[in-house]
């Protein structure tokens, strides 16, 4: 029973929200915030894999997100709608409700392949130099998209609204919300399984002492590749979902500012803490909304917040610990019996 308590809790939470949405208890604005929370959770947990658990310093997460967003969106528009550029629909529009996860996954896979661009240089270099490489990849992705006119170039790409509405035509439930819940659950589940296994802990060994890890039997190159690809793939999935919340994307949404936002979430929650990343993604989404009336000052206040955090609690809210370590009582509910911390 305990083994599945977190799954059950998450499942019932999602169901509750979905019912609330269906019965119009939640207005569109609140729905939007909840959906952004989901996307942010995927982004922060996936970046934490590289920046927290593996101790690298990737500053270009939004680039991978962009790849996923564009691949999924273009695939969907090409397959399921009649479009001026891509011609008539290839598949019946209704089938999108089954195939959306597939296109989403495709976006993730392509993003993971772009992640190789970062993973391979990381064999030879790390730290500051790798930071620049990730930054460069972010810019490369953004300017590549800006230069591909077929998908709208700098103007952006739209048509995802039609995809969403053709989902609604089949069954009228909040589809995007459902996919986001599924994606968020999937991502946290995946990362949790990864970092709690001996295999996945290899990346923590890489962070602590890469040379020792390699000599003591960890295939450091493979671990780096796996971690970077997993991280960027999940960011791609987050991007695909993000595109379908808005129904419209442009390269300007995936700048270094977006990457910075994700980094803030990771460091706010604590490096190497999965529950910390989830919490900070939720908290940060709310803070972002609360600060919205401040307009520009928002982007003075948020960095200031992080600076103060670095000064007074540099390890972040949780820092290498999980909620169950901070509140041991939670362990009774969430940690299966007979498992060592």
């Amino acid at each position: 029973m305990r083994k599945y308590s977190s799954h059950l809790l998450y499942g019932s939470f999602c169901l509750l929200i979905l019912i609330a949405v269906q019965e119009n208890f939640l207005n569109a604005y609140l729905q939007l915030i909840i959906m952004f929370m989901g996307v942010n959770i995927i982004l922060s947990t996936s970046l934490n894999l590289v920046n927290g658990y593996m101790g690298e310093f990737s500053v270009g997460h939004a680039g991978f997100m962009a790849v996923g967003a564009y691949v999924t969106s273009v695939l969907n528009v090409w397959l399921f709608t009649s479009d001026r550029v891509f011609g008539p629909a290839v598949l019946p529009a209704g089938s999108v409700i089954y195939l959306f996860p597939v296109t989403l996954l495709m976006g993730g896979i392509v993003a993971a392949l772009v992640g190789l661009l970062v993973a391979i240089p990381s064999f030879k270099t790390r730290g500051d130099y790798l930071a620049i490489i990730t930054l460069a990849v972010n810019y490369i992705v953004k300017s590549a998209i800006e230069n591909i006119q077929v998908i709208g170039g700098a103007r952006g790409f739209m048509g995802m609204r039609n995809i969403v509405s053709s989902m609604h035509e089949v069954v009228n439930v909040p589809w995007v919300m459902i996919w986001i819940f599924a994606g968020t659950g999937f991502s946290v589940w995946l990362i949790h399984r990864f970092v709690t296994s001996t295999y996945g802990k290899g990346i923590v060994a890489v962070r602590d002492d890469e040379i020792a890890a390699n000599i003591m039997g960890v295939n450091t190159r493979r671990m780096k590749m796996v971690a970077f690809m997993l991280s960027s793939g999940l960011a791609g999935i987050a991007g695909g979902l993000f595109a379908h919340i808005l129904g419209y994307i442009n390269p300007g949404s995936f700048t270094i500012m977006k990457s910075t936002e994700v980094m803030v979430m990771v460091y706010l929650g604590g490096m190497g803490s999965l529950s910390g990343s989830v919490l900070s993604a939720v908290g940060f989404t709310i803070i972002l909304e609360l600060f919205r009336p401040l307009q520009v000052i928002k982007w003075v206040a948020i960095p200031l917040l992080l600076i103060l955090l670095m000064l007074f609690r540099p390890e972040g809210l949780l820092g290498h610990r999980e909620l169950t370590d901070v509140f041991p009582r939670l362990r009774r509910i969430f940690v299966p019996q007979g498992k060592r911390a």
Partner: protein
Amino acid sequence: MNIDTLVQNLLNALQWGSFYALIALGYTLVYGVLLLINFAHGDIFMVGAYIGFFLATFLLGQYALALPFSLPPHVIFLVTLLLTMILTAFAGVTLERVAYRPLRRKGVNRLYVVITALMCGLILENGNLALLGANRRNFPQLLDNTVYSLGGVTFSDVKLLVIFATIAVFLLLETIVRKTKLGMAMRAISYDRMAVPLMGIPVDTVIVFTFALGSSMAALAGVLFATAYPVLEPYMGALVGWKAFIAAVIGGIGEIRGAFAGGFLLGFVEIFVAAFFPSTLRDLIAFSILLVFLSIKPTGIFGVARATKI
């Protein structure tokens, strides 16, 4: 491409590379001493340009409070340049004092200081936007920008000024680092940061000096940039700053020669890409070259890989 356009592009590249080189210098100096990527440095460049703007307009008597006498534009330019460099140096040192030093004193992970630097950059950009509003400002024309023509090649006073100023700065800095006590202390710190304080070298003084030097070079770049391209906006430092940083890395971060080599190299790449391809591809190609370069030689042109001892 005929010879005229080639020379023209070379000249443009030299000027464009000069800006990168001057800014890259700040990155490289600070990195050499503190092993810190001062991500706020691009915005120090922006701050420099703005300080220059306000000084110049003040000296021109555009505000209610004005000087009782008027100065010729050339003098104003020189005074502006010098005062801007001093004031921006103060700004850079303040940044170090307020944001980085407390962290360093606490002995936290180097990464946190880098993140703080990134955040300081955002604060500078957006703080400027919040304070001064989104409208762009035009830098007053202080030098009558005479354009000469030699064959098919045109060049202006400003362009030559930028290039020569950069070369002069390079020579000056090389001398400072090689000949003065403070400069030698800077090199010593980057060589062995444990032993230096034990030898009685005042590390904090060296750090302050480094930030002051780097920031004043960024200010120089800022004023020169504003003279050549007289439109100021709060985000002007962001992209230029990132690229200058790339230049520093390509050159081999921590090396003064590297900052100049990298800066000019990046300038050449960008100008010649723009000459052959649509200009929208400029960033794409520049960053791709960086990626390939760093994958092959991660330490940059002049950087030396530090051996790991086990």
